[in-house]
């Protein structure tokens, strides 16, 4: 069950438990705003990546929808499925981190949630342990055909950072370059594929009365995206594209990938000197420094989007290096998604609808949630999307720098998205899920950076004119 669903369930079914709901709300706020830890590997390995969170939310949506509908025998049948679905969601090892905090809270209130949900959440004090060197050595042997001591001039046996689906070690090539070696967890690709196949098998029967094709499309999208993330060769391609995109810009650094040392599960790239967001913030940067880096982060996202048609699913602090020479290092493209021509055209039309507003916007919304500009969507849902649009556009419509450090502004966005998710609309363009996550996570990051950025200027500078006609 998705956090927002649990809150809704508590509010409607057990109003006397509202204090628990408030506690949960605070917890969800933490989950939404606090970064996935990337520094202290021993404390926690963030195997919960953005697409995986999306998988979780997606599955939970279906579960909660099933909980709300159906009566009698059908209801009981569904309950069995729901139990299985919850157990599966909980068992998806890579999602457990997200659920673990929720599980800790809910474990104190066993009467508050359905038994199968509580049980699924109970067994979640799981954190993937970091790989010790003997395991890393095996992975490198399997992938590169030799021991790290032989392949590299030197290799640090302890990881210095966690990464999407793996961990990162420092090393030096025999040709002298300092590199970061990203090593994937053993058989994580196979595990994810199996998890998703199971999820599909369990969720599909719940789609009675809803749109089967939409469910299939979204599961397909999720499966494709996750399998892309487990392929470091794909990430190497993305890094190569990004490096080209930013090569003439002295404000950015994108590491070079050493293809001859890389494979689907090992990625070797330049080591970029610098710190992640947490360390940057503890150095007490001036407002001007925060604003500058905030601007660079936003600019990098806009450039990737408008010029390379790439959207990050999660604008994660771990993707950025604050370098001592003032550059912004862009290091992680595992969670990015390239738009197809059809998706880009859809995106262009939505841009235009957003700018025009009014009936054009409502027609665009109907299309995005029903597949047709004349399709039927509830007034409530359309109103929520209009609110979302207004929230998204506020920084764009503000003349000059917008204060992303305004926590009230960010909270408002979380409220709107929470409201939308509880309405149970499942039929929409899969790309919308990416948009929303990207929008929200970018704003969350800028909020943490407590920066002021002229978003209007950045969009005008980076977007091609044809985007708006």
């Amino acid at each position: 069950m998705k956090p927002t669903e649990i809150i809704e369930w508590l509010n409607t079914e057990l109003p006397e438990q509202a204090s628990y709901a408030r506690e949960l709300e605070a917890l969800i706020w933490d989950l939404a705003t606090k970064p996935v830890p990337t520094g202290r590997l021993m404390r926690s390995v963030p195997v919960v990546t953005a697409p995986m969170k999306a998988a979780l939310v997606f599955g939970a949506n279906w579960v909660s929808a099933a909980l709300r509908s159906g009566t009698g025998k059908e209801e009981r049948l569904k309950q069995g499925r729901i139990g299985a679905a919850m157990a599966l969601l909980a068992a998806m090892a890579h999602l457990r981190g997200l659920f673990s905090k929720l599980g800790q809270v809910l474990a104190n209130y066993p009467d508050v949630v359905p038994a199968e949900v509580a049980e699924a959440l109970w067994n979640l004090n799981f954190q993937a342990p970091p790989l010790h060197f003997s395991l890393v050595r095996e992975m490198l042997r399997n992938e590169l055909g030799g021991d790290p001591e032989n392949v590299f001039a030197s290799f640090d046996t302890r990881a210095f950072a966690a990464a999407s689906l793996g961990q990162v070690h420092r090393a030096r090539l025999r040709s002298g370059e300092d590199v970061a070696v990203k090593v994937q967890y053993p058989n994580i690709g196979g595990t994810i594929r199996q998890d998703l196949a199971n999820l599909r098998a369990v969720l599909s029967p719940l789609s009675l009365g809803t749109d089967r094709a939409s469910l299939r499309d979204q599961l397909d999208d999720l499966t494709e995206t996750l399998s892309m993330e487990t392929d470091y060769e794909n990430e190497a391609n993305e890094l190569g594209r990004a490096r080209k995109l930013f090569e003439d810009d002295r404000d950015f650094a994108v590491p070079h990938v050493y293809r001859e040392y890389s494979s689907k599960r090992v990625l070797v790239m330049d080591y970029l000197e610098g710190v992640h967001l947490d360390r940057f913030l503890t150095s007490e940067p001036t407002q001007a420094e925060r604003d500058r880096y905030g601007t660079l982060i936003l600019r990098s996202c806009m450039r990737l989007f408008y010029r390379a048609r790439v959207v990050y699913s999660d604008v994660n602090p771990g993707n950025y290096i604050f370098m001592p020479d003032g550059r912004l290092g862009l290091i992680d493209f595992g969670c990015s998604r390239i738009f197809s021509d059809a998706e880009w055209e859809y995106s262009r039309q939505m841009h235009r609808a957003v700018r025009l507003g009014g009936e054009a916007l409502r027609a665009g919304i109907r299309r995005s949630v029903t597949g047709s500009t004349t399709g039927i969507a509830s007034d409530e849902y359309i109103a929520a999307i209009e609110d979302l649009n207004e929230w998204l556009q506020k920084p764009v419509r503000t003349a000059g720098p917008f204060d992303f450090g305004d926590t009230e502004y960010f909270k408002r966005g979380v409220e709107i998205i929470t409201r939308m998710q509880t309405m149970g609309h499942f039929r929409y363009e899969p790309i919308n899920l990416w948009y929303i996550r990207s929008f929200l996570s970018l704003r969350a990051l800028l909020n943490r950076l407590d920066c002021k950025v002229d978003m209007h200027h950045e969009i005008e500078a980076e977007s091609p004119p044809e985007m708006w006609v």
Partner: protein
Amino acid sequence: MNSVKISAQQKERVRAGILRSAERLFRKHGFAAASTRQIATAAGVATGTVFNYFPTKDDLGLALIQERLSRANQDFRSQRRGDESLDEDLFAYLWSCLKQLRPERRFAGEVLQRAALPGAAPDQNGSSFRLPYLMPVQETLTRHGVVLSALDSHLFAALWAGIATFWARDKSKDQEDTMIVLDRSMRLFARYVVKEGSGNETDGNN
């Protein structure tokens, strides 16, 4: 003297013949399905003769994989850095065994599983494990200052037997799922034997 020498050569020939037949039949039918009688027939000796050389079928199985296990021990020793934690040390040796045995996975898993069970109490040498190939495990535990009780030895044996069974059927690429199972199991075991108040020590004791 001459007759003794011939006898020793003959014995060696018979032993080698039994091993060759056993290997062929184990590979073809699996360890459990190939009987000692079939092995004796294939080797052209009486069933009782097989037992003269190998008191049990487990001993026969172990003799077949002994050379690979010796190589595993050499690999393990040559790759130790000296700063390994207990669980990493145990993982490194046992994974080394499984890697060496990969070509014989069809029957080696069953041999390991059956042969893993320890004696009821430490033997006269203080070892918790009766089989030579598990001596590196004993040495590793000693190096980390860990003394196993009889119960601890059984726990280890149960884990190792389960891992060997899983490995024998593991279809994942390069048996990476077994890597994960072995890693998690050794972490669990290390945590268990260095539990608070046991007097056992752990990491970095080299």
